[in-house]
């Protein structure tokens, strides 16, 4: 198969599976799951350094920034101001201009506040950030985010951590049709087939955290996701057959005994 690389703003991504690093038992398990997933992109949160316990381990001792692309996020931010503050801190602490932008609207659904998200995307893109906004599966806001300078748009498949899969594949399809930037499903994937569905629809990548970290065996699930994403991408590129109501024989009728 010819090379099928994902390139965003000149950055080459080897994997179309992006990994979240939350909820793992410990950093050792995180590192093993990331390794098993074959991913080269990990998203991380921005938080205060633990001042009182300086012996607590650091995530970056386990996830080597030379080996993986570190994608900081603004997880936990409910306002534009907070999201901007976390983004700027992340850029100073990190090694790139990439930011997975979240402006959360409500703590029950964790749906994004799209008005704040659009505003923050616009400001950060102007400041030279490579912005990956987490948004709803809404084609209009996806387009608006693209116009505001988003490097890629990350619609949810279902609420964060819900594992409900791709709840509205038709919307994702509409988003994909209109998009000029890569579309990366962020949130909602529950198991391998969900990741495959996202990729079969034509998404450019999938970001997964809870489905792997929360699985009984996260390392095996990471591996399952790796193949699920590859399978979905290959199927998309190969072009599936149309769905039909009735059977079509796949063996020739010629040469039958009657």
């Amino acid at each position, binding site marked *: 198969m010819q090379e099928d690389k994902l390139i965003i703003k000149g950055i080459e991504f080897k994997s179309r599976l992006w990994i979240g690093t939350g*909820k793992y038992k410990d*950093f050792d398990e995180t590192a093993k799951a990331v390794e098993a997933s074959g991913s080269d992109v990990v998203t991380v949160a921005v938080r205060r350094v633990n001042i009182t316990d300086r012996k607590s381990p650091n995530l970056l001792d386990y996830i080597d920034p030379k080996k993986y692309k570190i994608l900081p*996020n603004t997880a936990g931010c409910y306002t534009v101001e907070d999201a901007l503050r976390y983004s700027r801190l992340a850029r*100073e*602490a990190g090694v790139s201009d990439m930011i997975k932008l979240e402006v959360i609207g409500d703590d029950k659904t964790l749906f994004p506040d799209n008005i704040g998200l659009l505003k923050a995307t616009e400001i950060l893109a102007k400041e030279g950030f490579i912005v990956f906004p987490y948004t709803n599966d809404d084609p209009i806001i996806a387009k608006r985010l693209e116009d505001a300078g988003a490097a890629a748009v990350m619609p949810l498949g279902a609420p*964060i951590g819900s594992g409900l899969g791709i709840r509205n594949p038709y919307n994702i399809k509409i988003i994909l049709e209109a998009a000029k930037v890569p579309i990366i499903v962020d949130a909602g994937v529950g198991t391998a087939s969900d990741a495959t569905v996202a990729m079969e629809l034509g998404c450019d990548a999938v970001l997964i*955290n809870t489905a792997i970290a929360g699985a009984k065996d996260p390392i095996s699930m990471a591996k399952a996701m790796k193949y699920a994403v590859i399978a979905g991408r290959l199927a998309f590129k190969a072009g599936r057959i149309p769905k039909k109501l009735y059977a079509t024989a796949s063996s020739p009728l010629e040469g039958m005994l009657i």
Partner: protein
Amino acid sequence: MIIKLNGQDYKTEKQTLSELLSELAILPEHVAVELNLRIIKRADLPTQTLKEGDTVEIINFVGGGNY
């Protein structure tokens, strides 16, 4: 002097942010420092002085996916 460090009162005699970081055994790589809501570039940490009542935030990356 007493400063507000990551949300808590902290007593230090260190004069600059660099010195404060080494007192805390924190390597400047992979952290970002904010002084009174202003981000201090890594290169400026050695020259940025501290005064009584300053608010200092030191952040790093932790495990996280969404939210």
